[in-house]
């Protein structure tokens, strides 16, 4: 439940994610999926309960976390390369060793990351307003990946894109995950997207926000586009959808959650 500006509250959430695992979270609107991601990122602090990332409090651990928002959230006054470079500029440990060779390294790292998300050298000099929605999301991915994160937290990043573009970016994301094997926590409304990308899909309910089901997705990794035509893929998508329906019904019958945020989990 959301009370005005207050965040949706979470009840007991028992969640552990293994290193290098890709886990999706689906659930009805307002069930606290985004809140959970922000707790893991250390952007919000739990009022009660315990949450550890690699054995430390979020935001304090040595684990590098990167966040991809639903909106690309690019700085309009910076070029694509400037936007991707931003996390490196903000890293003060990096700035301390601000010599010429380090600068050249960072520059090539930025260029390389932009290439990795499928953007061209010409795109690097463009402003966000010159790009399509899909390209802007690629820039947002590059900005998250440039710091070589251990955990990627993705909050419905492809929700605003049309279906074909969404599929293409799913494949791109799978490839990016496979090449570096960061831990992925992916929030979405889209069940087939969740099944395609993840090794495990968690179904959340609202009021109070809690995890109802955890469904293993046993397909080989990395996933390929052909998987979408597999009857087993359709079967699993159906199962997850069924759980999601039950989660929504559960919410309708459930009572409003107490305003206590509890989250437990380890990676």
């Amino acid at each position, binding site marked *: 439940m959301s009370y005005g500006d207050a965040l949706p509250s979470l009840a007991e959430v028992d969640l552990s994610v293994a290193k290098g695992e890709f886990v999706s979270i689906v659930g009805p609107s307002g069930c606290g999926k985004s809140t959970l991601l*922000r707790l893991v*990122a*250390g*952007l919000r602090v739990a009022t009660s309960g315990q949450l550890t990332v690699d054995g430390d409090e979020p935001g304090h651990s040595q684990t590098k*976390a*990167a*966040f991809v*928002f639903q*909106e690309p*959230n690019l*700085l*309009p*006054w910076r070029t694509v390369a400037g936007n991707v470079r*931003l*996390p490196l*500029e*903000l*890293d*003060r440990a990096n700035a301390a060793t601000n010599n010429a060779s380090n600068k050249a390294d960072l520059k090539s790292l930025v260029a390389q990351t932009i290439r990795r998300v499928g953007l061209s050298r010409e795109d690097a000099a463009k*402003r*966000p*307003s010159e790009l399509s929605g899909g390209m802007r999301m690629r820039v947002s991915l590059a900005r998250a990946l440039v*710091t070589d994160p251990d955990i990627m937290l993705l909050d419905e990043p492809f929700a605003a894109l049309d279906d074909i573009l969404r599929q293409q970016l799913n494949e791109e994301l799978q490839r990016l995950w496979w090449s570096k094997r960061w831990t992925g926590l992916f929030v979405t409304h889209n069940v087939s997207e969740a099944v395609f990308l993840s090794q495990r899909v968690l179904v959340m309910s609202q009021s109070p926000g809690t995890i109802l089901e955890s469904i293993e997705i046993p397909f080989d990794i990395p996933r390929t586009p052909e998987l979408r035509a597999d009857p087993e893929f359709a079967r699993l998508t159906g199962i997850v959808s069924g759980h999601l329906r039950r989660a929504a019904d559960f919410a309708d019958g459930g009572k409003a959650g107490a305003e206590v945020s509890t989250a437990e989990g380890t990676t």
Partner: protein
Amino acid sequence: MPDTSKSKLAQVLRAVAPPLILLVVLLSLWQFSVWWFDLKPFLVPSPFRVATAAYSTFGKLAAATKVSAAAALSGFAASLIAGVVIAFFFSQSRLIRISCYPYAIFLQTVPIVAIAPLVINWFGSGFRSIVIITFIISLFPIITSTTTGMTSVDPELLDLFRLNRASRWQIWLKLRLPNAVPHLITGARTSSGLSVVGALVGEYFAGFGVNDYGLGFLIGRNTSQMRTDELFAAVIASTLLGIAIFGAVSIVGAFILNRWYDAK
């Protein structure tokens, strides 16, 4: 399709011609009324007489315009710098913002003609006092617009900066300040117009006893000496100065938004 350059010219003509024709009609009416009602030149000089006065005193007028422009631009520049510095502090703490804001509004609402004599009392006659008066009148729009720009930052962008463990200073320099640029330009346009008002009011009160006088002083002297034709010429010069400064700031602002900010 007709020749586009030709139709573009026609478009410009259609926009410019009506006000120009109206101007000619009004000037003729003015000239005719002065002759028909036999109005005294010290009350209402004819347009022809004003033009003659402007021509014969052109050197004096140009020199005064230059002095006024220097005062207006100095006060405007000072208000730009001080306004951004004040907005920086306002953007850093809500407590500072709510504590100081009533006094910033005081700055805006106090009539400039009421405090001009006070400023002259403290800082003496001449250029310095005129710049201070200009500064006071130009400051408020810069403070409010820039503070708005620095505080109206997308919360998710703030999250992005915090996630990357950005310092307060980095958040200000790389997020709040660039975010405020379009707001600052809007405030600067308002202030640029006000700066000419400030300079003229300042000169009207504090422009005595100096060899280099501005338009405000000229307006005051022409009024007291009943040289109404020269007064009209000075008023027109003041208006043109205001348009020039406002236009220049608008052009620079549009250029910055286009080239650097990605206006969209």
